[in-house]
């Protein structure tokens, strides 16, 4: 053995036999293999698989059973608007629609730019969803007939819990031209209690009360008068005792009454002369009843006492005709009610009093006249009646007299009240039909025939429930729930000066079990139509955005989609069709607006052309903004900006902008033109013309703003003087600066440095001092500002700049403007800030233009590109011309438009503020979430970077903030924001709760985000920073391009988790009195119609929360798997 091994060790062994590859065993692959490996790997696995499948099945079945048979989804459907936006101003709803469509557009472009591969799947899903939404409702409507509506007619009071109801005399309903309304007595339905209690239609409250009573109080069997008669006649003996006993047991509260009443009945019958067999039988049955009742608890002593008193009265007083009648009423009342024992006690006393009065009120009747008591048929009838009432509640008793009473019905026009049809429904008349002549409101009158009493349940075909709540409505709209038939009218139909009780019709307190057909036809069409109204525009905009995104992503230079006529046309069709369909869908062009016919066609063509131009412009802008950068990169940047700005844009649009009038809009347009000018000036900054225009344009802009202001404020000599003074000072300053520049070469370095320092200090001093003068600003302030010009120039002069650095010019100009605005009496703080914002934007555009000029590739591009070449000088001059024209024309233009009432400047704002106190529902939830995420993310980033800063002050400030906020519950932060803040500064109390809650949520979330981001930053190797520094990136660039992308990618799950928890935590704002979606749910279940419908409501809320949370987490997973994450996913 060992020898052989030694021999092997010395030999090289080569295996030359290649067996080839074999297929794996069949049981190990494919479906069978999968099942074996995953589900039934071992006996234990198999058991667990089967048991858990069964459990899931049971749960799912239970849910669907409930959902189809018992749930009342009108709770959700009727309250959709409430869920979505609470009582947001209807006239501002378009703003919500706009933001939703904007988000759809951005989503579409994002899908085109970032999710190229999965877009087909998404498109398929969307189309399927939309097709289902659009097609299912008509199919269901066509295949399944609408269930009948049931309601009561007549003049009998029906007992419902503690109240009594009378059937409505008139009902209003919406009908469409061509429909047929048919009516009949619901004879079959009320024939047995099973069908009645399952009336799955839209019944009025009275019918429901009947059905409730029948369903709740009877245990399948009812003793009717007929039964009683048959019992007495001996027809029904078998098992009757047993059944009676069962019936008695269903009366939990009235068992003692039974006993007592039975005793009383016995007493009375004892005094009657037993002349016929009926009484004997009765006596026999009473005995049985007594025996049955003995097994029950004697609980209601008061009743017992009451009845005993009656009994005493009956034995001692003479039995008159009235006594049985009184007793009848009293006992009937007792049995019909389920009252607390205290109330029963009171009632008992009342009963005694009433009886005593009745009896004492007839003193002439002799007390001991036994002969007066004779077996009257009336008394026997009373006993029979009472017997039945004892075993059957009053309302059910009335119910069993339904259908017998003939009813007079009439259909009238709701506006004119003109009679359209009239008939009498009785058992003999089969049914009556009425053809609806026109769309609109109709009134159904129904009553018992004159002089008769009675009730009936009517079955109606073609009368559907109505709601007035819709997803979006600017005028008063009434919508038929089942098929969205719409009637627009200012008021409800009036019947005899009162609003017609159409709300009663939708009050569907369904108690029975529904079948699948009814479920489908009731809930699917209205809900799907609601969803379609919301989702169709969304998906269409999304598709349009996607087309746009594809177009944008695929164009660059020579491959531009605009380079051939055919593709131009296809883009035209491609990108405008959905938009036009959208417009048509909303009826923006043809519907409500008065534009029709040829003008509408022109408008549509103009809109299409506008869209193409827009695409064209975006293409141009993207390819020019970053020459050399590919279109996809530009598109990504554009989307980043778009999504970054979206939350704030959304907020501005929804909440409205105070003071955004026609004049303000004009000023914005002027400002935009000015920005364009600044860019071209920047491009030409190196030459004298550009320089002159920079200075001149700057002051001219101030002048323009001043002039625009004067349109409102009116001219005065002081203002003109101030302008002139300012221009003189500025001119002196420019000359001084140029002299200084000429002398600069002869200054020593020390002089420059100290001069620079001193200038800065003085400048700061003047700046602060003028600030304090702001209120009482006068000539001295202007003088100070003028002095500041000199110091500004000195500052530049001494600062050692080798040329007129644009930075310094811009900073100086900004500060100066601020100063000067402060000294300007007619301008308040806000307009100053507004103005400085404009100037900053102008400065940035200027810088951009300047940089474009100074960068070599831009210069090349200018050579290459006709746009740059053309616009460099001529463009600037043209822009200057336009701008000057605007400067001169704008004020008069605005004034002119004002005079014609086109642009109402002061009274009518373009985007008036919405009342944030009535914000609520999903809209508030989304506002808080999107704004919270949008604002807390940058703050969180800043905090995380601050916490890692080398500067101790910044670092510890960030640590303190993060730790304090993380140590406090959100609910406390919200309380602080809403309750404490006004105590600190009463002026803050004017900020709406919604905004304060948003700020609280944002600040809270930012602390957590900061910790998440910090975790990501710490996970990055130090070598990354070193490598970035070694290739020359600055600290800021390193953070932005190297550290943050890696850190954020590492913590995407944690970040999105934080966003999701922010989304869900918004429900906490209910404690500060805001009704976001959970608050709305609580409000819905408190509505009389849907009292306590918690399952449906909260299930819907849960689904909404889940959908949005899942979208967030889906997106996060997609982002994780992009770029370098794809490799990480592969490696894992």
């Amino acid at each position, binding site marked *: 053995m060992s020898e052989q091994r030694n021999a092997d060790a010395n030999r090289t062994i080569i295996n030359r036999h290649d067996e080839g590859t074999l297929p794996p065993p069949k049981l190990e692959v494919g479906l069978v293999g999968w099942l074996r490996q995953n589900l039934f790997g071992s006996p234990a696995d198999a058991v667990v698989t089967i048991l858990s499948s069964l459990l899931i099945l049971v749960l799912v079945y239970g849910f669907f059973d409930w959902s189809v048979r018992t749930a009342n989804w009108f709770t959700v459907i009727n309250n959709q608007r409430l869920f979505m936006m609470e009582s947001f101003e209807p006239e501002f709803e378009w703003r919500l629609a706009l933001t939703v469509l904007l988000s759809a557009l951005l989503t579409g472009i994002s899908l085109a730019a970032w999710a190229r591969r999965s877009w087909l799947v998404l498109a398929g899903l969307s189309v399927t969803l939309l097709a289902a939404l659009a097609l299912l409702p008509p199919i269901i409507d066509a295949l399944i007939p609408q269930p009948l509506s049931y309601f009561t007619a007549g003049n009998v009071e029906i007992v419902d819990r503690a109240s009594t109801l009378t059937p409505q005399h008139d009902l209003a309903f919406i009908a469409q031209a061509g429909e047929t309304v048919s009516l009949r007595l619901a004879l079959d339905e009320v024939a047995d209690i099973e069908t009645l209690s399952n009336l799955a239609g839209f019944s009025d409250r009275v019918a429901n009360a009947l059905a409730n009573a029948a369903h709740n109080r009877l245990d399948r069997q009812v003793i009717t008068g007929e039964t009683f008669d048959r019992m007495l006649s001996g027809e029904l003996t078998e098992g009757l005792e047993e059944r009676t006993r069962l019936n008695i047991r269903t009366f939990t509260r009235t068992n003692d009454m039974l006993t007592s009443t039975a005793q009383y009945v016995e007493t009375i019958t004892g005094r009657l002369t037993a002349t016929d067999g009926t009484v004997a039988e009765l006596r026999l049955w009473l005995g049985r009843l007594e025996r049955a009742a003995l097994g029950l608890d004697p609980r209601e002593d008061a009743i017992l006492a009451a009845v005993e008193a009656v009994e005493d009265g009956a034995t001692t007083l003479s039995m008159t005709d009235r006594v049985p009648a009184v007793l009848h009423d009293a006992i009937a009342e007792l049995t019909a009610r389920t009252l607390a024992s205290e109330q029963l006690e009171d009632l008992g006393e009342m009963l005694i009093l009433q009886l005593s009065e009745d009896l004492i009120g007839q003193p002439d009747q002799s007390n001991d006249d036994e002969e007066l008591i004779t077996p009257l048929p009336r008394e026997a009838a009373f006993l029979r009646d009472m017997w039945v009432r004892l075993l059957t509640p009053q309302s059910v008793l009335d119910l069993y007299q339904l259908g017998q009473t003939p009813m007079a019905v009439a259909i009238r026009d709701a506006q004119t009240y003109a009679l359209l049809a009239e008939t009498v429904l009785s058992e003999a008349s089969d049914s009556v039909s009425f053809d609806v002549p026109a769309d609109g409101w109709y009134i159904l009158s129904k009553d018992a025939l004159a002089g008769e009493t009675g009730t009936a349940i009517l079955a109606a075909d073609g009368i559907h429930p109505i709601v007035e709540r819709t997803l979006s409505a600017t005028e008063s709209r009434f919508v038929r729930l089942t098929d969205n038939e719409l009637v627009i009218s200012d008021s409800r139909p009036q019947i005899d000066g009162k609003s017609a009780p159409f709300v009663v019709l939708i009050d569907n307190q369904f108690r029975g079990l529904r079948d699948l057909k009814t479920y489908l036809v009731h809930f699917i069409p209205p809900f799907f139509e609601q969803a379609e109204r919301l989702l169709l525009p969304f998906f269409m905009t999304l598709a349009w955005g996607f087309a746009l995104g594809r177009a944008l992503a695929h164009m660059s230079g020579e491959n531009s989609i605009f380079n051939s006529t055919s593709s131009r046309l296809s883009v035209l069709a491609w990108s405008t069709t959905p938009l036009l369909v959208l417009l048509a869908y909303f009826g923006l062009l043809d519907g409500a607006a008065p534009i029709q016919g040829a003008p509408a066609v022109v408008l549509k063509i103009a809109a299409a052309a506008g869209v193409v131009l827009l695409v064209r412009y975006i293409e141009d802008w993207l390819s020019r903004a970053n*020459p050399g950068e590919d279109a996809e990169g530009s598109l990504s940047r554009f989307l980043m900006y778009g999504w970054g700005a979206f939350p704030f844009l959304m907020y501005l649009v929804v909440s409205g902008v105070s003071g955004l009038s026609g004049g303000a809009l004009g000023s914005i347009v002027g400002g935009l033109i000015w920005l364009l000018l600044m860019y071209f000036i920047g491009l030409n900054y190196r030459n004298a013309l550009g320089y002159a225009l920079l200075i001149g344009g700057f002051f001219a802009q101030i002048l323009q703003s001043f002039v625009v202001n004067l349109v409102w404020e009116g001219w005065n000599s002081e203002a003109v003087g101030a302008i002139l003074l300012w221009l003189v000072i500025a001119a002196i300053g420019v000359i001084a600066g140029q002299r200084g520049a000429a002398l600069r070469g002869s200054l020593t370095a020390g002089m420059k440095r100290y001069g620079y320092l001193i200038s800065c200090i003085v400048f700061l001093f003047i700046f602060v001092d003028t600030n304090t003068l702001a209120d009482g600003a006068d000539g001295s302030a202007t003088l100070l500002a003028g002095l500041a010009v000199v110091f500004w120039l000195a500052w530049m002069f001494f600062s050692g700049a080798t040329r007129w650095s644009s930075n310094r010019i811009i900073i100086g100009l900004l500060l100066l403007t601020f100063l000067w605005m402060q000294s300007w009496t007619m301008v308040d703080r806000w307009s100053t800030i507004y103005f400085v914002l404009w100037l900053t934007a102008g400065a940035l555009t200027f810088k951009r233009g300047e940089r474009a000029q100074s960068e070599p590739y831009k210069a090349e591009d200018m050579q290459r590109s006709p746009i740059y070449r053309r616009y460099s000088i001529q463009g600037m001059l043209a822009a200057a011309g336009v701008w000057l024209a605007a400067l001169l024309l704008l004020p008069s233009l605005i004034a002119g438009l004002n005079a014609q009432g086109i642009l109402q400047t002061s009274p009518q704002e373009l985007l008036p503020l919405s009342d944030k106190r009535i914000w609520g529902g999903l809209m508030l939830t989304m506002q808080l979430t999107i704004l919270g995420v949008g604002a807390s993310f940058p703050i969180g980033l800043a905090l995380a970077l601050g916490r890692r800063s080398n500067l101790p002050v910044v670092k510890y400030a960030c640590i303190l903030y993060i730790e304090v906020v993380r140590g406090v519950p959100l609910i406390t932060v919200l309380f602080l924001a809403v309750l404490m803040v006004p105590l600190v500064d009463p002026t803050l109390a004017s900020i709406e709760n919604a905004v304060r809650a948003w700020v609280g949520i944002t600040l809270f979330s930012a602390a957590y985000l900061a910790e998440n981001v910090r975790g990501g930053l710490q996970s990055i190797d130090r070598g990354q920073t070193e490598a970035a520094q070694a290739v020359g990136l600055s600290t800021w660039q390193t953070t932005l391009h190297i550290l943050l992308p890696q850190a954020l990618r590492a913590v995407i799950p944690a970040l999105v988790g934080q966003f999701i928890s922010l989304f869900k935590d918004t429900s906490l704002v209910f404690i500060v009195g805001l009704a976001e979606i959970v608050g709305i749910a609580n409000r819905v279940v408190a509505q009389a119609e849907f009292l306590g419908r918690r399952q449906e409501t909260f299930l819907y809320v849960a689904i909404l929360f889940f959908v949005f949370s899942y979208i967030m987490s889906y997106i996060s997973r997609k982002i994780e798997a992009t770029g*370098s994450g794809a490799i990480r996913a592969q490696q894992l």
Partner: protein
Amino acid sequence: MQELNQQVMASDEPIIICREMNKWFGDFHVLRNITLEVMPQEVLVIIGPSGSGKSTLIRCINRLEEHQDGRIVVNGIELSHDVQNIAEIRRETGMVFQQFNLFPHLTVMDNITLAPMKVRHWARDKAEQRAMELLERVEIPEQACKYPGQLSGGQQQRVAIARALAMEPRIMLFDEPTSALDPEMIKEVLDVMKELALSGMTMLVVTHEMGFAREVADRVIFMDMGRIVEEGPPENFFSPDIVHHPRTQEFLDQIL
């Protein structure tokens, strides 16, 4: 490259000057009185036992570490606290690390083009064109669209070299570029470095690859305990006939 060579030819001044440079890590005196001059196009190999301050020395040259005493002048620019100077020196100095330190979230192409675009403000097409040239030079143009995580160690290090070269530096610093590599991959990296040296790049190389030092270096420096112990041409340094400093002899005995 030709352009670069002309620039370098034009100057006879040392491109790196260290004068009596000292550095401490806390109380630990890590670099002691280093004086060193490097001429343009020179290939300087620094060897020495671990902890001798080799890496710290070259990291001081591009200010990844701050020296506390003495002067460093790179390409005529004094290294001081002036941020502008540091930025300018870093633009002229490329560095290759032992652990490659590629940016894992960017593709190879983006790794190379990021700095030229952000620091030198090149247009993307120009930067990408240049990057492709460099990738061809380090012989992995087909990897341009991959992420660093998908490459082997040798490929990653070559990308790191290309990244450093993309900024068109005048000086390249190599900090043990082959220490983290499998033996099979060391050669491909060294080949690239040789090619670079032959093209006239000024290089400071910290390495344990004696073969590379012998073949390519113009000058070898041996460091120990933060001092330059010995300095000379490689043929002398590796010659058994020369009398070395005892510490150098001890080191050479151990590795050869």
